[in-house]
């Protein structure tokens, strides 16, 4: 490639080799400004006046240690480099990419029909959110987003809300485990498993469902699904009360979370944090409420916000969101209409199995849909929804072919872990675990 001298000089000037956290003496004043002032949108003088941890200790007073990628409380393969002075964290840098499998490149090789199998594996704790946003983006490109059958839309909402519950229940478990509440870990996993059992009943799989597809959902809800949901709605509320008794009133648990990992609203907005992290700072922002999609504007639910922006607020918000999701699920149960579970547009939807036996056209059509896929008109679109972790967005550029020309997923965890250095700055190393846990990153989502 004929790169201009400008670009060559530019690349030579970047530090291509080093992703790691450098010694303090190697960093410049500018780097420290980057860590505080730039994020707080302050001048250098204001950032310096902010104080905080002792500024500029000598190199021999500080120590840089690695936390991860194999540390159990880093939720996968997150690696943090921490600069410590005694027990105090002075700087922190997340180093990611250990789970990078090139899923966006893979997405360019798969047809729009196959794409769901790919995106569902990104944020593996909320697969329905990923499938949903990918399907909605594809439908928008196809121009059929207004034509999705009512039943399919309500099934999507049902699964998305149950998924929010299962994801937050797992957060309860891992958050408890990270803070030493080991029984909480077992309880959280136990309740999540109940939800996953329902998913298995509906989709055949506990995770990575590929259930929500462009045009609707893969299959109708099975017989007895209503009883399955009602069982969950009966089972989980008393368990949530138990969690509250176990954790909220627990002085050790509270002391370890309250006032830890504080982030301000302006910091959260500047860093692009969304979901419970943004809401914990008191910013009322939930895409289901403020930029409604599906039929969320017809349902009654509360957007839970915090006050202090600390780890306890983030925990409390998630606990409350499980209850709000159950409230939504109850309303969805009441309003679930009868009808088609996928659009009857033969360009997108394969013919029913029975038709294949009697009609040559149906057989050919079926074959072509699954070998070539359906063509999607040229254009580009960005669709965003509220996943349990924040805004998950899907940007698709199509060149008119059966595969996306470019498929990008805006991963909430990827943006959210940028908050870690700001939450940890000046805190104790023991609190680092609580902070990571409260951000609830999914490394499959971060690295994609």
């Amino acid at each position, binding site marked *: *490639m*004929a*790169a*201009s001298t*400008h*670009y060559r000089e*530019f690349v030579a000037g*970047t*530090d*291509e080799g*080093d*992703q790691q956290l450098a010694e303090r003496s190697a960093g410049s004043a500018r*780097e420290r400004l*980057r860590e505080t002032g*730039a*994020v707080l949108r302050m001048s250098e003088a204001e950032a310096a006046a902010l104080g905080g941890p002792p500024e500029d200790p000598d190199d021999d007073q500080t120590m840089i240690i690695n936390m991860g990628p194999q540390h159990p409380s880093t939720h996968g393969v997150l690696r943090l480099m921490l600069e410590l002075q005694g027990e105090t964290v002075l700087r922190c840098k997340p180093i990611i*990419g250990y789970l990078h499998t*090139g899923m*966006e*490149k893979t997405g360019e*090789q798969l047809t729009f029909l196959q794409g769901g199998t790919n995106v569902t594996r990104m944020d593996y704790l909320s697969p329905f959110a990923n499938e949903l946003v990918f399907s909605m983006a594809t439908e*928008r*490109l196809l*121009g*059929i987003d207004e034509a999705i059958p009512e039943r399919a839309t309500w099934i999507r909402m049902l699964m998305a809300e149950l998924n929010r519950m299962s994801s937050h229940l797992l957060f309860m478990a891992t958050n408890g485990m990270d803070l030493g509440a080991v029984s909480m870990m077992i309880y959280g996993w136990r309740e999540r498993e109940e939800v996953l059992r329902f998913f298995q009943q509906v989709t055949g799989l506990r995770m990575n469902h590929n259930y929500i597809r462009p045009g609707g959902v893969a299959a109708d809800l099975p017989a007895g699904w209503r009883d399955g949901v009602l069982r969950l709605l009966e089972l989980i509320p008393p368990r949530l009360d138990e969690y509250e008794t176990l954790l909220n009133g627990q002085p050790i648990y509270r002391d370890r979370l309250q006032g830890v990992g504080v982030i301000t609203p302006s910091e959260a*907005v500047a*860093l*692009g944090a969304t979901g419970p992290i943004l809401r914990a700072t008191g*910013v009322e*922002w939930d895409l289901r409420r*403020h930029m409604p999609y599906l039929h969320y504007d017809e349902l009654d639910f509360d957007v839970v916000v915090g006050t202090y922006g600390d780890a306890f607020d983030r925990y409390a918000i998630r606990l409350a969101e499980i209850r709000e999701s159950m409230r939504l699920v109850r309303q969805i149960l009441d309003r679930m209409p009868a009808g088609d579970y996928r659009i009857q*547009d033969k*360009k997108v939807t394969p013919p029913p199995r029975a038709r294949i036996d009697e*009609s*040559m*056209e149906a057989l*050919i*059509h079926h074959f*072509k*849909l699954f070998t070539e896929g*359906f063509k*999607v*008109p*040229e*254009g*580009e*679109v*960005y669709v*965003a929804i509220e996943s349990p972790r924040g*805004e998950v967005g899907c*940007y698709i550029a199509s*060149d008119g072919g059966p595969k996306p*020309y*470019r498929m*990008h997923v*805006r991963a909430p965890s*990827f*943006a959210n*872990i*940028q908050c870690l250095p700001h939450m940890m700055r000046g805190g104790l190393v023991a609190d680092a675990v609580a902070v990571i846990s409260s951000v609830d990153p999914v490394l499959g989502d971060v690295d994609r």
Partner: protein
Amino acid sequence: MTEPGADDADAAIADQSSPGESSAGESSAGTELHGFPLVESRGQSVLHPTREGYLDVVRTLAEEGYTMCVDVTAVDYLQHMDRPLPAAVQPERFEVVVNLLDLTARRRLRVRVQVPEADPTLASLFDLHPGTEAMEREVYDMFGIGFEDHPDLTRILMPEDWVGHPLRKDYDVGRIPVQFKEAHA
């Protein structure tokens, strides 16, 4: 075997670009925002600033309420240079796509900047939106687009010693050797 049905099915598949195209093609209504063409793409607002005016227009937009930069990504249009663009915009190989969000007015705006292959550099948004730090690094890692004045432009997802930028269209996809691939002739 030439079944008449084959053609029907073929036609159904080939025909399918029609429902979206009429309603969703980029309608260049000729509107402008801050001197740059503003188009509607599937009901979403897209702004096409020049590379030189990019930083200033994002700054102006931030003052107008687009306080959150949700996403920065890029597309390599190497195999698709004839994409529809407003008349004033000269297509280039790379395109950086920035998604801005206005929390108060509840609106979104997408900014698409053309970045030439010969000099793939662009101003960094870091000073305006610090949350773009990791996203710009990802674009640099995956597309080799350099962001000037970015505080720490290093690879983020690929290993440090990796050669090439994987999401470029001329980057070869690895293959797993297939056994018995001669079998079908």
